[in-house]
């Protein structure tokens, strides 16, 4: 599935885990002694909803189930593909339409029956594509053909091979395939067509079917308390090396991040996320090791280019001027205490598709320049020159310019950021009103829009005429980019994009996103060029002010061995082990 999740506060803490293993990284150990103890991960922010993951819409649920079920493939810190349930890498036909997927022949369900290609095809066809189940992410498997939305065509060739056939080319579609996890056909058929029975199916809610598909097996899920999985001795990747090396893996829930971090300090848990303020302190603790890793999540200021925003925002020069007045350095230093890198487009430096060349870097020196920003606004008619030569930004008629900044509540750093942004804009002479709204309210009243006077259902993008219920000028939000398939960001930046609530429209950008999903983009060089051009264009156009990519801090007990710090730090977690006590 596309990992294009807007990130909520909790996803800053919760790391979605996808189990993985690197071949040839076998640890030299006598396995009898190396399997020991319990790994406890501390999280705060909420429990998962269901282990019946196909029904889930929250990150925690996928994370929980992921301990017992491997996807087809995952990636390491360098974003190289790491095969999981795949026997070989997916083979794409030269025309880019047919994907041949060979799976391992030693995968087993809990009743010892083999996991076959048919299970995957069934999962796609009968579950994900079905009407009765309403799979939330079904559009991952849809394409536009002649103006109609149709599903791709999966087909089992033999017990260990299936194909998926598309009618249009999408070079990045393969990443959806890598994330695929099967449901056991022999159980699922019992509940077919009955969503209530499927929802309440004991096998799916207790993960009793997972066989040797994951490093751990489900043991217990005490709601609001902990999720416990125990070592799966039959794990297909671990058989040879005796992995995994933890007897149990526990996800323990905490009510507050303060108690969660206290638990790590006290040695009660093995791993948890550390807030920026605490990092230095935790780095100096004798028992804790803190890894600082980049993320693909970024903050942005969305400029309202719809009818109910300040009219100046429709002009890219004005947007550039505003972005020029807001210091990314300051946000990084003052609010995230340095745990951030300035963002200029939606593609982070850690992505293989990142190109520095040509990026217009607003918001850092030399393009962090309030004077110049004011000058630009003045030249566009938005400002008056005072006697001392300084410029006060105003509306065109000389009245004070009043902007409404909106941010969702609950995440303190982003609340702090909006105050910093206000400070920057106030220094230009702009009046700024901050509106703090609960997440749901923000979405319903500010983000969702519809054409006034119609009885349209509000959507995130109901076309260029649509406006939100409440008027706004700038919204601070967090977005995420899939490092491997940035083209998913089209929902934000194309005219028709499903999440383009700011009403941005640039035919050039639309064309580039289209090209990224065309046959020519099958050539990686070409795709690289497309993304470079896209980044450059967006960094110049400023549909939103890209602020910073955040860095996360992960605190581990020092005796956890085998960690490879990096953006995908958990990819080989089944090979981690505790250093033997001396």
């Amino acid at each position, binding site marked *: 599935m596309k990992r294009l999740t807007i990130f909520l506060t909790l996803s800053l803490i919760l790391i979605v885990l996808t189990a993985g293993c690197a071949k040839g990284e076998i640890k030299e150990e006598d396995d009898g002694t190396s399997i020991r103890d319990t790994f406890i991960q501390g999280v705060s922010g909420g429990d998962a909803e269901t282990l019946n993951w196909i029904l889930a819409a929250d990150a925690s649920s996928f994370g929980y189930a992921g301990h017992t079920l491997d996807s087809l493939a995952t990636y390491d810190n360098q974003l190289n593909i790491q095969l999981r349930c795949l026997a070989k890498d997916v083979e794409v036909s030269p025309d880019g339409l047919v994907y041949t997927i060979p799976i391992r022949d030693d995968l087993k369900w809990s009743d010892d029956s083999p996991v076959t290609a048919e299970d995957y095809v069934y999962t796609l066809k009968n579950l994900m594509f079905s009407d009765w189940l309403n799979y939330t992410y079904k559009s991952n498997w849809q394409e536009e053909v002649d103006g109609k939305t149709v599903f791709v065509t999966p087909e089992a060739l033999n017990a260990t091979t299936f194909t998926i056939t598309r009618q249009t080319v999408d070079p990045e579609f393969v990443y959806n395939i890598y994330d695929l996890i099967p449901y056991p056909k022999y159980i699922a058929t019992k509940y077919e067509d009955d969503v209530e029975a499927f929802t309440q199916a004991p096998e799916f809610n207790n993960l009793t079917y997972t066989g040797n598909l994951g490093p751990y097996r489900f043991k217990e899920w005490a709601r609001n308390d902990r999720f416990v999985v125990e070592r799966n001795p039959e794990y297909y990747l671990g058989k040879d090396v005796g992995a995994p090396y933890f007897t149990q893996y526990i996800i323990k829930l905490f009510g*507050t991040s303060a108690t969660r971090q206290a638990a790590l300090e006290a040695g009660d848990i093995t791993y948890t996320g550390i807030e*920026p303020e605490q990092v*230095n*302190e935790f780095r100096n603790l004798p028992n804790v090791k803190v890894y600082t890793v980049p993320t693909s999540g970024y903050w942005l200021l969305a400029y309202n280019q719809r009818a109910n925003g300040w009219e100046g925002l429709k002009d890219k020069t004005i947007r550039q001027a505003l972005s020029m007045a807001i210091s990314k350095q300051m946000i990084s230093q003052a609010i995230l205490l*340095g745990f951030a890198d300035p963002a200029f487009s939606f593609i982070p430096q850690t992505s293989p598709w990142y190109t520095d060349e040509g990026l217009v870097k607003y918001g850092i020196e030399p393009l962090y320049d309030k004077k110049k920003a004011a000058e630009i606004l003045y030249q566009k008619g938005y400002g008056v020159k005072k006697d001392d030569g300084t410029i006060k930004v105003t509306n065109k008629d000389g009245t004070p310019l009043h902007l409404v900044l909106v941010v969702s*509540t*609950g995440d303190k750093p982003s609340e702090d950021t909006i*105050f*910093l942004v206000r400070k920057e804009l106030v220094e230009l002479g702009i009046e700024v009103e901050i509106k*703090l709204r609960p997440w749901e309210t923000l979405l319903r009243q500010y983000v969702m829009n519809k054409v006034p006077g119609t009885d349209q259902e509000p959507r995130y993008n109901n076309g260029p005429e649509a406006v939100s219920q409440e008027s706004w000028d700038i919204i601070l939000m967090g977005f995420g980019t899939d490092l491997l398939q940035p083209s998913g960001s089209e929902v934000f930046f194309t005219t028709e994009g499903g999440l383009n609530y700011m009403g941005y429209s640039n035919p050039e950008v639309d064309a580039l996103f289209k090209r990224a999903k065309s046959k020519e983009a099958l050539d990686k060089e070409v795709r690289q060029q497309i993304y470079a051009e896209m980044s450059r264009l967006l960094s110049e156009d400023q549909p939103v002010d890209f602020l910073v990519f955040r860095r996360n801090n992960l605190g581990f007990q020092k005796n956890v061995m085998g960690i490879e710090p990096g953006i995908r730090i958990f990819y080989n977690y089944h090979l981690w082990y505790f250093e033997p006590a001396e």
Partner: protein
Amino acid sequence: MTERLRDIVRRISRPPSNSTRLINYYWQRTRRNKLAIFGLTFIIFLVLLAVVGPFFTLDPTLVDFENKNLPPVGFTIEQSVYNTETDDFITTKVSGTWNHPLGTDSKGRDMLAMLISGARVSMLVGLIATGIAIILGTIIGVLSAYLGGWVDNVLMRLTDIMMTFPFFILLVLIVFIFGPSLVIIVLAIGLTGWTGTARLLRSEALSLRTREFITAAKAMGASDNRVIFRHLIPNVISLIIVIATLAIPGVILAEAALSFIGLGDPTVPSWGIILEAGQNSLRTAWWVAVEPGIMIFLTVLAFNFLGDGLRDAFDPKSNI
């Protein structure tokens, strides 16, 4: 607050008159309780602070990221910023300054100014919500007692239902459903907190109703309204004062508890909101959470002291 009220009804009964001499008499009685006087002094101080304080402090909304997380005067802490290039920290020692005697928060806002404007919010929440609850409770209780019959029946069954409703669940439910704005919070507390007062005033009014002076007033042809407002209410006023004084700290705590679980109004920094924002950085910037915590604690303490003193003063049995 109901358990308190039951205690009060057990203990309070008062002479049926409300002359200034009586006020004076009660004042004399209250004055003897040192804790009550401390409470009263603190509350007056707080009200003054809330009313005029903002004219003397910095703008509580003024952010200043250069001076964020400054400790209070007399304290020195280390602040460190991560350097992505070197994977190391640049650490600076920061000391409190008299510009920000109580330090600053993570946005560099002056804690003193925030606490004072927070006092305004918290006191307003306490007073208005209590006011709503008391007025509603008084009206319902007195009407119920005075009109009797089916009105009494309906109102008392409603009171029963409201009393049985798990209070905090109801509060959280309302605030969650209708959104955490200060108006909703105040209304929710006010509209759910009247039951005890209603019960109490009903029984008080019932016992008063049969007293001679009410009968006399009725005999002289006073209208129902007149009897209720000129005779009944003044006679239960001391009871109301005590209930209110003891209810306010409950409201302040309820608001703080709502803030603690993320249902405070983030746009209006009450003490609860400041505390909630600070509690996660307790280890690095303890004062942001400790200071509002102390303010809440002292205020609640002051109201409890005063309420207790008033209760004793109004209690003819107590020997003070």
